């Protein structure tokens, strides 16, 4: 079990060869951003190597971030909403793992592969998806197959689960839901990425450092 702050601190300690001082060139926020990026990269790698390798298609539940009350708006003759974060890219858009009504999370909407809605409309038996709501993902937009804001009752917000580690969801002291065996790999890769930083100036001058950063 670890937190983002703890992981970042470990990375900085290794790079500094001990406790990092005030003049340490590796900024806490910069290191944390790198740690999050490595985490998402490892999640995708794990899915392909561990899950798919054993024949399992479903992403690990640890890596699912939940977002409730995502607003839905009317869009042309259908409806759409905006993804709160960009998920890991997986086959069949599995990065967008689940979308449903906020009060009925056990009945997910049906994901449709991009561009297949017109083909679906030509199928006499299943053109309306048997009455269910379907959606396609285009970039950061989720477009539904009908205007769900005009349904009765209207659906004006949805519950979304994404395959992503979103730093906005975790404070410095929240436990990050990553497998323990992944922690050391995150630290190794972060250290490897950040090890090539320039040597700091001999003089410990905070004002000059800040001027350099803003220049």
């Amino acid at each position, binding site marked *: 079990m670890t937190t983002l702050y703890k992981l970042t601190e470990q990375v900085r300690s290794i790079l500094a060869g001990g406790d990092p001082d005030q003049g340490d060139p590796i900024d806490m926020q910069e290191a944390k951003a790198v740690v999050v990026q490595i985490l998402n990269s490892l999640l995708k790698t794990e899915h392909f190597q561990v899950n798919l390798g054993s024949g399992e*298609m479903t992403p690990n539940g640890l890596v699912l971030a939940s977002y409730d009350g995502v607003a839905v708006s009317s869009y042309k003759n259908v409806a759409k909403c905006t993804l709160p974060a960009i998920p890991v890219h997986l086959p069949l858009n599995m990065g967008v793992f689940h979308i449903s009504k906020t009060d009925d999370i056990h009945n*997910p909407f049906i994901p449709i592969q991009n561009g297949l809605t017109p083909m679906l409309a030509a199928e006499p*038996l*299943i053109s309306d998806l*048997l009455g269910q709501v379907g959606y396609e993902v285009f970039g950061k937009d989720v477009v539904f197959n009908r205007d769900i804001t005009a349904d009765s009752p209207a659906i004006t917000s949805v519950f979304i689960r994404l395959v992503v580690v979103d730093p906005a969801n975790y404070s410095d002291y929240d436990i990050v839901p990553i497998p323990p065996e992944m922690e050391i790999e995150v630290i190794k890769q972060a250290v490897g990425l950040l090890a090539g930083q320039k040597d700091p100036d001999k003089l410990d001058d905070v004002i000059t450092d800040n001027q350099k950063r803003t220049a």
Partner: protein
Amino acid sequence: MKYITLDGIVRSLLNQKQLPIHYYMRFLKYAADGYRELHFDSLKNIRAVKLPLTDYKAVQLPCDFVDLLKVGVATGQYVQPFVMRNGINRLNNLDASGNPTTYGSPTQSTSDYAAFGGWDWFTNHFNDYGEATGRYFGLGVGSQRDTFKLIPERNEIQFSEDIQATEVILEYIGDGTCCDSATSIHPYAQKAIEAYADWMYKKHSKSFGLGDEQVAEREFVNQNRKLRARLNGMTMEDIRRSVDSGYLASVKI
């Protein structure tokens, strides 16, 4: 009667294969195709409708019509079937306004053969007491009025213009794509539809080889065979009745 739904079949299949909901759309398409295919031979979605005849003695085929089983007129609780006659003209006769109309009885100048529309009333077939005496020598039964022809290019069934009925009963095989088909699937068909969807999934996926596809196809053939066996309602009594119908009472000497 208990039915299952197409949605239930697809979710059952996803559950078996431990696939997430992202595969639902794909398997729904395969299952719908399998359901349609099974309708033509095994499930045989038989539908019956009563259709009015047009002025020119034809009926419009229903939108989900695939193949004809029987067409006839209601006779009490039974349906007296009509017989196919290939000689009926496939073309409509049009009036001056371009609307279809009947051909009417052919005259000597417009036909090579006189039409046998029926038989005439001759008084020498009845005695003074009004009893029929027979003597209809040469009368044949090959020329009947109760005939029809299926004309797909017109989307119609054309009947003989001599029939007096105003409505006919049509029994036909539908394609199973009417509005309630997806929620009214015979439970016997579930395994066959699942096997078909699995076969199509393996056929169209690069993750499976030819051998996997062929095994899946054989499984579908097997399940279809079981489906037909389950739906075959023949009993021992049916066989005995069929054999017994060949025995008739005769004069005992």
